[in-house]
């Protein structure tokens, strides 16, 4: 099984090298004349003011939360879906119940208005 991953490892190394080489090439070729006006943070031509601190909504957090729950669910459902063809009906129903419970969570979040963009 590990032999299969040799290719993945080699590809990951190549994939890391490719952008590094491109950026390195640009680093060799490009002009380097920085000045303070140029390296100002872009704010549509105005003087930047304050740090990049913006008040964030808890809404983002709720979306990430629902995503996390579904992601973990996938860890359980992928092995289940893989052996689906060998499963008896009741085992499929177990999986469906698993999904239905998560659907209930989604319905709850929806009803509470947590999925609205405020």
């Amino acid at each position, binding site marked *: 099984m590990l032999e299969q991953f040799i290719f993945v490892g080699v590809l990951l190394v190549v994939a890391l090298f490719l952008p590094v080489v491109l950026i390195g090439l640009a680093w060799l070729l490009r002009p380097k004349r920085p000045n303070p006006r140029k390296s100002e943070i872009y704010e549509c031509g105005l003087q930047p003011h304050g740090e990049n601190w913006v008040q964030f909504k*808890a809404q983002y957090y709720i979306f990430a939360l629902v995503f996390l729950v579904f992601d973990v669910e996938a860890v359980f459902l992928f092995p289940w879906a893989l052996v689906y063809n060998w499963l008896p009906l009741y085992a499929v129903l177990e999986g469906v119940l698993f999904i239905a419970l998560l659907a209930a969570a989604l319905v709850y979040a929806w009803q*509470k208005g947590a999925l609205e963009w405020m």
Partner: protein
Amino acid sequence: MTVQQVLFFLFGAIALGAAIGMVTARKVFHAALWMLLAFFGVAGLYVLLEAPFFAAAQLFVYMGAIGVLIIYAIMLTRGMMRQRLPRVNDQWWFAGLLAAVLLVVLVWLVWQHPWATTTAAAPEDSLNRLGLTLVDPEGFALPFEVASVLLVMALIGAVTIVRER
């Protein structure tokens, strides 16, 4: 030293080094990035353990979902960053001592115990076996459903706590 052992040291060094980086990082955002690197190293270890599904799940759940969630939480509590506080509390030396003692004890325990290991190769279809065990009433059917209930409860609880009213 075989290739596997070299790779073990590589991934182990990434995981452990990144973990130490996380603990010592000054900025919380950097701590989060170190933590993600540690997760990546652990994913490499899972590949060496011939559990590629868990390596992918590590990237999927920990780096994808939990990483995003933690960075969002850091952003939501961002006002903290402007205060210049010491990173650690007053008892940090005691915590370090405790962790070091625990480490020594654990390493001693691990080395002196004669582990009965098998050299059998991991089966090619270990993932299928996992799937069958998860829905087998003799196996983990109940924990499988309870895991779903746990996730639902966590979601409901967290949404209730965090929602802006």
